């Protein structure tokens, strides 16, 4: 529906969203963040289209329409990053440019297919949250996932760690000191009352919240 949006407006919406995540709504920071020049005309246009509201103090906020539109753009962008990093195996720096390209190709239907393929990831490679889509709320779509978080695995299932997607760095560091890092094979030993996974020769107990942060390549689809 917003496919006809101009690239400039897309950039503005993206940076307003990103700034809101950081708890800021100052116009200067939005200009810094955006990859396009944020002119007064551009902002006025966004406001006219009903995406933004501005107040006198130089604060910019998304409207409901703006939030929905920006959410979809951000979702596509971050899913594209995941796709580039996880499936194409590029590094974080390389991913940025390519993700931008991909982002614009992903149409609505393809977005949910990619999301499903990647196991409905919750964070992008930079650990920013990916807004939920309709497909994330439908669990049955899981069967086709190439990548899945380990709480979606069956007891006894073997898989290979794709990435750890935690919003806090200490959690990633902790998991890695237990040996849970990309490329390591794991096996789910138990799901209730706590998660137990076998990693190398070590058994590790986790709560569900952490299990949801560990994304793996499922064995049956493992073409790596």
């Amino acid at each position, binding site marked *: 529906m917003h496919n006809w949006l101009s690239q400039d407006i897309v950039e503005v919406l993206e940076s307003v969203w990103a700034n809101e995540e950081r708890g800021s709504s100052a116009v200067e920071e939005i200009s810094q963040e955006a990859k396009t020049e944020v002119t007064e005309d551009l902002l006025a246009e966004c406001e006219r289209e009903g995406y933004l509201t501005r107040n006198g103090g130089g604060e910019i906020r998304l409207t409901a329409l703006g939030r929905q539109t920006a959410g979809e753009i951000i979702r596509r962008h971050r899913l594209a990053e995941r796709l580039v990093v996880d499936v194409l195996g590029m590094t974080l720096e390389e991913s940025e440019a390519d993700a931008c390209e991909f982002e614009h190709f992903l149409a609505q239907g393809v977005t949910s297919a990619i999301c499903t393929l990647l196991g409905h990831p919750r964070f992008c490679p930079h650990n920013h949250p990916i807004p939920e889509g309709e497909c994330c709320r439908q669990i049955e779509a899981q069967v086709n996932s190439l990548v899945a978080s380990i709480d979606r695995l069956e007891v006894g299932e073997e898989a290979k760690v794709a990435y750890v997607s935690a919003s806090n760095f*200490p959690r990633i560091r902790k998991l890695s*000191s*237990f*040996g849970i*890092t990309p490329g390591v094979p794991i096996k789910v030993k138990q799901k209730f*009352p*706590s998660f137990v996974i076998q990693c*190398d020769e070590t058994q*590790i107990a986790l709560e569900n919240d*952490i299990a949801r942060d560990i994304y793996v390549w499922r064995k049956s689809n493992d073409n790596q």
Partner: protein
Amino acid sequence: MSTIVQIEPKKAPIPKDKIPRLLLVGNPNVGKSVIFGYLTGKYVTVSNYPGTTVEVSRGKMKYGGQEWEVVDTPGVNSLAPQSDDERVTRDMLLDAEPDVIVQVADAKNLRRTLLVTTQLAELKIPMVLVLNMMDEARHRGIEIDSKAIGELFGIPVVTAVATEGEGLYSIFKSIVHAKVPNDPLEVQRNRLLTNEDFLHALKSKTDKPLPLQLAVEWLQTQDSGFRRGAELWLKQVADGELANDAATRTRIRNCAARLEEARNAFLEKSVNQYKKVIPSVFRESSGTGLKIGLVCLLAGLLLFGYTEIGRLIGLPTPYGWLNSLMDRSVIPGALSFFQNIHLGWLGSLLFGKLADDGSTYETGLLYPAITQFLVLIAPIMFPLAFVLRRSERFAERLGHWTRDWRTGAPLMIVILLLMYEFVGVIGAGTLVDALENNVFNVLLTPNLQKLIPAGIFYDFFVGEYGLVSVGLTYALAIVLPIVMTFFIAFGLLEDSGYLPRLAILSDRVFRVMGLNGKAVLPMVLGLGCDTMATMTTRILETKKERLIATILLALGVPCSAQLGVILAISGSLSGWAMLTVFGVVLSQMFLVGYLSSKIVKGKRGDFIFEIPPIRVPVFKNVWTKTRYRMKWYLKEALPLFLLGTLILFVLDRVKVPTPWGRLSGLDMINNSLAPLVTGVLELPEKTAQVLVLGFLRRDYGAAGLYDMVGQGLLTPVQIVVSLIVLTLFIPCVANFFMIVREQGTKKALIILAFITPFAIAVGGVVNLVLRVLKINF
């Protein structure tokens, strides 16, 4: 209160006439303590690392005419600290100036081993790598190319099976060949770090290269206090400052991520190169012995179940048979043997005296403890240890059964019952009776009473509130045996690898209370001693969890001494009455826990930890720990017992004129509490005194209550109400001071101000409900 140990710059190199120091470092559960025990022999001291609860063992070893100091550090998964344990080890590596590091590793976990090795390599200290538990690796068909690993790092690599003594002597021999390890990541790291301008500041003032990757990782830790320490350290060893702004933090973060990536790649490569897995079936030792062991274990479990149920419903049990056999032939024989060699007193100390009704012998140190042990504990423990040693497959199965809730829950009940038999029956029952009736109430107090002439000294030492007749007797005869048996049981569970499984089973329960499964450790330890458990709340990650756990310990977890007395009182109560007591206390814990999880600000810590395999505990290790914990208890608790008695004595003696006549301090406190106690709780006035005693030591109060019950002063409902109030009531003085130390005076006073009225209110409500429903038990 911060537990961070200040990171100080390296001191001047130690003079060579100093005894060289050897540090044992490694992941948790890799057998460091066993190797430590072998290297050092028997001269070992265990102590808490300053400012923490982390226990550190030190000892001396001699090899080739050279004496060494050996330090056993707490297990670490990474030198970038995430827990108290890891902090202590890191601090010791930096500050204790080790001359040699011996890394002990689990051979089958090569990846985690090499993670620590690469981190140690950055420190540029001579080291040796010990690949331990080679047997477990072999059982799983894992082959490690230890020679190639040795060449890669340029250090001696020794393979060992420490529990069997295999390879231990080679460790001795290798120590003198310890080398500063090659750092395989150095080149890559330097390349990665050259462009990071923030690290320009970090040029080492000394000749030693700085552990840069570690520095970056330390700057990444969650704990802000630790980060500040790391910054300070960097500032002191290196020239220049490190800005603490968002941009620098982002750079450090990116830097850490890339270094981590590089190390992961290295580890991945090394594991593929040096570790071969040959799929093989489990190699099991001979089948017949194993089968016999399993049958014995099953029989032991059946015997245990039958005896527990049989005693409950009054069936004849093997326990009864064995006891009557002992009463008829064994004990009289042993007693007359001791009579003949003129050691009759020793005989009756060990085997007891004939009871008044002449049916059985009682109050011996060994009897009936020995039959209790033989019938209830030994038939399970010994076959279990036997089978576990024989069969790795069984150990793995048991490891599975104990963490799966369907099998884990019944097994947990069996284990808790076994613990109750050991601590509650043998410790709190038999041993307490024996010490009280043989030593304190028969030998010590009466003889002292004869020696000391009536007067103030008599009262001070052996009177109603005498230091010996009350303080010392309670501390040594009632509390000590319970604490000792509890710590033995706890140590066995700790070393067997069972406790983490308990945490898994209970995680969901604790989550209701804003905690996670790790909280089960302080809670179980609280059943031994709440004061000590309050200190161990430090193993919990967040402030919120530590505060909630502290409140719950203070409110509802009865310590072993108190539990012992409660269980003794339970003899005069019906099952329903006891169920009411425990039900009310538990429900209040949940309620208060749930509410505090909503009120207390902050986050719950991540629940993630390694589950060690089930192993047979090495009794020597358990005993060392128990001895250390008992010493701690005596040092901390005994003075408080005596102080408590002293306060009572003074309160009882000092009489002040008042409008109601001359009253002692005790009378006044009792009088002011009396309206509450008699009015709200409808208990006899004397119970007020028990509550006051209860604050001086909770178990001490319980013991007072026990006396009152013994004298028949209370109805069953009154017993139930007073047990509930006493259990919920303010923690003992020692516990209170520990809360002050851990949480600060303000929070401690708030906890006190909440719990006191709360306990009385709950008691009042229970009393009211029981009266209204006309339940008399």
